[in-house]
């Protein structure tokens, strides 16, 4: 699959490194090219520096059909806007969005978007660990 990741921070670069091991082709986009430092050197990871709303950047990213788009920048609102924009424009079959704010995450889930909230995951995980230990 061709997977596009927006945001090459801790989660974005780890996702890229992990998904390429599973045989996927990755295009990773970040406005700050210094963020690419944690990516593995791999022929199946394409790095694109720039703003995805710029036409030249978007042309590079969507040169080949995209199966999955994952938005994991540090800003909830950027992730939500870019994902909806790309989904509308390029009819991407699957879009995953990281949303830090748990309430916002569930609002957009109700609207039909696939959001992932790290706080909710940490909550569930900690509850599980406590159940085992207490």
């Amino acid at each position: 699959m061709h997977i596009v990741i927006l945001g090459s921070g801790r989660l974005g670069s780890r996702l890229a490194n992990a998904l390429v091991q599973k045989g996927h082709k990755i295009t990773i986009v970040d406005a700050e090219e210094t963020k690419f430092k944690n990516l593995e050197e791999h022929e199946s990871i394409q790095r694109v520096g720039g703003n995805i709303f710029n036409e030249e950047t978007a042309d590079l990213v969507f040169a080949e059909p995209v199966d999955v788009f994952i938005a994991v920048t540090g800003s909830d609102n950027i992730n939500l806007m870019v994902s909806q924009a790309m989904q509308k424009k390029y009819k991407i079959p699957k879009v995953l969005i990281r949303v830090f704010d748990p309430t916002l995450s569930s609002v957009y889930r109700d609207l039909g978007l696939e959001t992932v909230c790290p706080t909710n995951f940490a909550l569930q995980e900690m509850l599980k660990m406590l159940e085992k230990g207490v």
Partner: protein
Amino acid sequence: MYIIIVGGGKVGYNLTKLLLAEEHEVLLIEKDKTKTAGLAREFGESLMEGNGSRVSILREAGANRADVLVAVTGTDEDNLVICQVAKAVFKCPRTIARVNDPRNESLFSTLGIDATVSSTRLIDSLIEEQVKAEDMVIPLVTLRAGNVEIIEVDLSRSSGMMGKKIREIQLPEGAIFISILRGDEVVIPKGDTELIPGDKVVALVRKEAEQALREML
């Protein structure tokens, strides 16, 4: 009407002032503490400090009973999310977003925002109207989302209307003369008012009739 405005920059500040003067119930939400002190002095209880893209803040602001929510921060993604949350969670009947980057305008409307305001586009259309003014048709006011205009026209000497009485002039459908400026005088046109050289005509006209009217003058 109860109107919530998110973003206390220049646009939000002036909008709040205007709507309060029109005696609407207004709440301005601003997150930046360096801005809220000054705004609170002027707007008192009509100001709330907080991040308007948080559901809890909008709830506290009473978004569930707001007639209109206007998001005018300097950041497009914030304006979009604020309006979408207002619609989805609080069933706000009308949401208006400022679009800082004109490229986002069509995106916002496909994503359910009721209206967008882009200062870049407004400036463009103002310049365009100024250019049009060179052929002596000056739009004075644009009404109802741009569909109806009040225009001022310098009647040209060669115009077929010169020397004619108002009742003899067949105006295009959707256009009417509302006054004639003759020197320092304002003439309210009646059927037997005659148009003379030097007259300026003020007309109310629908956009689609503007071209036809212009050709007649």
